[in-house]
């Protein structure tokens, strides 16, 4: 019977151009799918639809001016991206950073991480077909955005970090608002589980789909929650602690299943961990100044510098080659999304279009981050 079917029923492979305008590609990502019916044979990608060449722009900008450009990479973890540049310059110039700045940075980091994950959760539900999650995710995100707006002056591209500190001191309402948020979010997170995580259809859609082994995850350079779902320990906050992460107690979430559901669970658990960090640090903000005076013109000594931070999507890195001028000679932005996207072809082979959409949203791509 099997032979009969394969002999007589010939199927023709065809190409489907998914994107650049497509609801599931989270922006202007273009995927070229080679399909047999609904089954994916190969995924090829074409990028660059919103490439702004930030790396080239950085080569003509002073270090102070670079900071705000990194907002525009992964706009959902803009604070972490800023922080990477600031930490790099501070390390290169040996600027001593007071504890208060470190704690503020860490607090805002974790709030950013939660807001990014919450948005991801909403969009994840949308991609799978549960449209309501989007608004529920935005409810929490709105609270965080309000905190940011009050303290930093903007909601998305916050540009709060400056070299040598943060732009403004914490707003007087900050601590109270964050505490309110923690109480609120602790009530709402279990709702996320009942609504989506424990839903039979949802689990059936994700479990065992998009498997990637630990070895492959390392080889493809997967990072962030996507890699941790495969059992790779890669949390920069733990491995190379920066800012105030060394004084907070938290666990690195590691799952070993390596499928889409594990990637989903990692992010949900990470929100709990972020809450833990917030709870520990919110009462212990040291007194002091919010900004260290730096020189008007910052020149890095000649050499190579690298700074990594754990952005919401993973291992974000800035590599600077300096020749001693006030502009970097070469600045490379290592984006987590780009590395995660390279493994897409490996993950989706032999699965269906619907699975591709689910996987694409579990690796949580942000296209400006990939296109840079």
């Amino acid at each position, binding site marked *: 019977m099997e032979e009969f079917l394969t002999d007589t029923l010939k199927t023709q492979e065809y190409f489907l151009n998914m994107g650049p305008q497509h609801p599931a590609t989270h922006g202007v990502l273009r995927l070229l799918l080679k399909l047999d019916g609904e089954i994916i044979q190969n995924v090829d990608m074409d990028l660059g639809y919103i490439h702004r060449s930030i790396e080239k722009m950085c080569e*003509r900008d002073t270090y102070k001016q670079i900071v705000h450009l990194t907002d525009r990479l992964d706009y959902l973890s803009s604070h972490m991206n800023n922080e990477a540049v600031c930490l790099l310059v501070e390390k290169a110039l040996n600027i001593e950073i007071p504890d208060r700045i470190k704690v503020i940075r860490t607090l805002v980091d974790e709030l950013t991480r939660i807001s990014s994950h919450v948005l991801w959760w909403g969009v994840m539900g949308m991609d799978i077909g549960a449209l309501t999650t989007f608004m529920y995710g935005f409810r929490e995100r709105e609270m965080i955005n309000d905190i940011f707006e009050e303290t930093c002056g903007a909601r998305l591209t916050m540009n709060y970090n400056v070299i040598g500190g943060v732009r403004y001191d914490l707003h007087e309402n900050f601590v109270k608002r964050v505490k309110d948020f923690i109480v609120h979010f602790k009530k709402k997170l279990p709702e996320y589980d009942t609504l989506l995580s424990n839903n039979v259809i949802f689990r059936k859609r994700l479990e065992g789909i998009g498997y990637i082994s630990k070895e492959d995850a390392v080889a493809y350079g997967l990072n962030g929650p996507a890699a941790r779902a495969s059992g*790779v320990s890669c949390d920069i906050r733990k491995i190379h602690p920066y800012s105030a992460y060394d004084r907070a107690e938290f666990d690195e979430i590691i799952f070993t299943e390596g499928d889409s559901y594990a990637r989903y669970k990692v992010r949900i658990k990470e929100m709990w961990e972020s809450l833990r960090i917030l709870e520990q640090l919110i009462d212990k903000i040291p007194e002091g100044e919010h900004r260290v005076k730096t020189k008007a013109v910052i020149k890095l000594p000649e050499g190579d510098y*690298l700074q990594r931070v754990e952005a919401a999507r993973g291992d974000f890195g800035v590599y600077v080659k300096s020749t001693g001028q006030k502009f970097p000679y070469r600045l*490379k932005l*290592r984006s987590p999304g780009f590395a995660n996207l390279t493994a897409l072809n490996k993950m989706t082979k032999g699965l269906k279009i619907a699975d591709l959409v689910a996987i694409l949203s579990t690796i949580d791509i942000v296209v400006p981050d990939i296109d840079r």
Partner: protein
Amino acid sequence: MTNTELKNKIEILSENLIFSGEDGDFLKIEVDKDNLKEFMKKLRDNEELRFDYLFALTGIDFGEELGVVYHLESTKSRKLIQITVKTADRNNPEIDTVHDIFPAAFFNEIEAHEFFGIKFKGHPDLKHLFLPENWDKGYPMRKDYTDINMLIR
């Protein structure tokens, strides 16, 4: 493991290695472009070192010569090293591909190719990824590339 110890372990893997930055954050190694592929393979497969995570692959225009900087991390010891490889030929720069050693390098090499014009020998698909498919105005990230639309200060 300090950088000096690491240096001693890496030294024996290949010839013509130039080390620097022992007292810095990470060890910097400059490798001959003919030895690159072999050296990378050894770095990955060496039981003690296990530099198996390609953190970043950066194309650089050094002015006179073009080069690629690899940042490798070991998932075992969590040490980071920087490997630089240079080629003096600006018109036809060729460097061995490492995408068969680190699959992560596949798209990064395409990126370095289209922005710097570095040809990766053995790479199967050096297409235009970021730039338009009919792009023929040179390599935009090179230092000698000029664009009238670019804001110069």
